[in-house]
């Protein structure tokens, strides 16, 4: 920030638009201010338009619903009377996203750390390129690969979990079938969000001030201790931000999950058993044949997903705001 000493008698400068106290406003500044302000307004208007659309279109089905929207698992909005609820959808969405995050965050940050501070330059470039390439693979390819290739191969993992960890209700499997389960969908989602988390974490890691890194090394820290002392505290908001972006994708992933899940509308804590459904997958599967109330019900479920994603992002912002010095949000 610069301060200027005004010469006595000088005309009062136009400060509001200039930002820098005392500087005169040039036309270029005004244009840029207008453009950036306009972009911000466009974003807000778009978000508002989406929210209004969702609420407006969702109202008919919510009025026609004879069941408790939040606690019912069944989905029959086109039946007479309409009977549907989002309990199973919420469970499936949160469960698959949780599994995806538990798998993707450690691996993504590990890859980022390796590329930023452990690998040789050439290896880092290649690895970074390949990880980013993973982000370019379309979701439907992941879905098809997941259901055709990965699912049969994950049967072994499911059986192992049931045999050795079967005392935990989560890993119990009463049916003996291990395909089209929430766990498999979560694993594919983890692979899909990995590049996002890895790329953003990588960017944050390389921005750690060299002084901090060299200071900790000079004090005799091992490489890992240096990472723990100098890099992680600095990069924490960035890592959280990266994970939140990944979580946003995991919550909203549509076609890959629609292909991989068996679409049963119940809350099943045995994650290796077939079944489960998420908000986005439900919309993808039911949209074409839905009647009027059915469409409205799907939009209502979309509204809930919108609200959940908003809540997740807001809590991320709050967490990052605690380290506001290092956050790009300020």
């Amino acid at each position, binding site marked *: 920030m610069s301060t200027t000493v005004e010469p006595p008698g000088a005309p009062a400068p136009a400060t509001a638009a200039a930002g820098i106290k005392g500087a005169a406003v040039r036309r270029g500044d005004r244009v840029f201010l207008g453009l950036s302000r306009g972009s911000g307004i466009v974003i807000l208007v778009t978000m508002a338009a989406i929210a209004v659309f969702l609420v407006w279109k969702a109202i008919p089905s919510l009025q026609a619903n004879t069941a408790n929207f939040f606690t019912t*698992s*069944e*989905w*029959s909005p*086109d*039946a007479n009377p309409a009977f549907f609820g989002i309990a199973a959808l919420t469970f499936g969405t949160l469960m698959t996203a949780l599994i995806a995050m538990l798998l993707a965050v450690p691996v993504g940050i590990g890859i980022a750390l390796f590329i930023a501070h452990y690998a040789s330059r050439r290896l880092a470039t290649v690895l970074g390129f390949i990880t980013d390439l993973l982000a370019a693979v379309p979701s439907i390819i992941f879905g098809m690969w997941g*259901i*055709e290739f990965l699912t*049969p191969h994950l049967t072994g993992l499911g059986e192992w979990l049931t045999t050795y960890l079967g005392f935990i209700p989560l890993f119990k499997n009463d*049916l*003996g*079938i291990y*395909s*089209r389960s929430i766990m498999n969908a979560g694993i594919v989602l983890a692979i899909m969000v990995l590049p996002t988390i890895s790329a953003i974490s990588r960017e944050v890691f390389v921005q750690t001030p060299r002084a901090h890194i060299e200071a900790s090394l000079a004090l005799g820290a091992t490489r890992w201790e240096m990472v723990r002392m100098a890099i992680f505290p600095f990069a924490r908001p960035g890592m959280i931000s990266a994970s939140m972006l990944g979580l946003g994708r995991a919550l909203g992933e549509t076609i890959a999950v*629609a*292909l991989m*899940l*068996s*679409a*049963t*509308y*119940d809350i099943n804590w045995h994650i290796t058993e*077939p079944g489960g459904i998420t908000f986005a997958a439900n919309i*993808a*599967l*039911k*949209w*074409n*044949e*839905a*009647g*009027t109330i*059915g469409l409205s019900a799907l939009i209502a479920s979309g509204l809930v997903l919108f609200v959940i994603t908003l809540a997740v992002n807001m809590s991320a912002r709050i967490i990052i705001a605690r380290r506001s010095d290092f956050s790009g949000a300020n």
Partner: protein
Amino acid sequence: MNITGKARLTAVAIIGALALAACGSDSGSGSSSSASGSGNANCVTGSIKASGSSAQKNAMAEWINAYQTNCSGATIDYQANGSGAGIKDFINKQTAFAGSDSALKDQDKTDADARCSTGPAIDIPMVGGAIVMAYNVSGVAKLILTPDVIAGIYNNTITKWNDPKIAAVNPGVTLPDATIAAFHRSDSSGTTDNFTKFLGTVSASSWTYPHAKDWPAAIKGGQGAKGSDGVASAVKSTANSIGYMELSFAQDAKLSTAWVDNGGGAIEATSQNAASTIASATVTGTGNDLALKIDYTTKTGYPIVLVTYEITCEKGLDAALVPLTKSFLTYTAGDEAQGKLTNLGYVAITGDLLTKVRTAVSSIS
């Protein structure tokens, strides 16, 4: 930055090439000589849009290709986005006709009649299909199932392949002691609707769920796959599995299909056997509206069938759309087009019903 002469020349060359490519004409439009095929003398030029059932997607693609090859200047665009979406498009005047796995009813009928300002909206059956039980059990070359057994498998009362109820209908066949992996559709579908309608009609004691496009949520167990191709691929890759799908999907995936015994002996799941069931359906619509009621209890034909209707206006379709719609539907109701259906794995409309279909089409104006 200095732009050298060479760079300038390259830029001009690239821009020129792009501009010339953009000006290029589509191959085949306008300059084609009409093929001297089976002589569709009823050619009309124009362009219409249609959308709806994905069950008849392959039949439509074949017919549109044949019609457009014979009649240059005609463009028919069929979007297989689902029966529900197709009917909505038709009601919103986006399309000339809709393909649907079920006839118009309730509010949709009222809205469709309103869309056709001067006349009623009619359902014209055009493509038949057989819903087959494809299975993947090694060592079983011929499997016979009864409607009660099928209902038992799908509502989880019969869980193993060597269950006495299945063995009773398959004397002499060694069935493995393995759990049945039963696949259903995870997405909404007219195939599910017709399949559950069949089960609810013929084995009402075992199948108490109302028929719907969505698989009954009350049933726990079984696995869902997206699309008939998803079910086919799931059955193909899972041992000891069974799934319901249309004949064409089972044929493409080279899956064995079960014979169905509806009380009159086991009947093979073929196009011909299904055709007789469709031909013997009763017409429940009035006038030229040929909504059908299929006799699922038939003992002489393959009982699990479905019919895809083309829904359009008998009178009151926009004047610009009438000629090509009528001409195209006349072609699809003709012998040549119906003859193509069997090769594609569908079932042709035959007999008296076909005559009624042709009458209905000729009344479009």
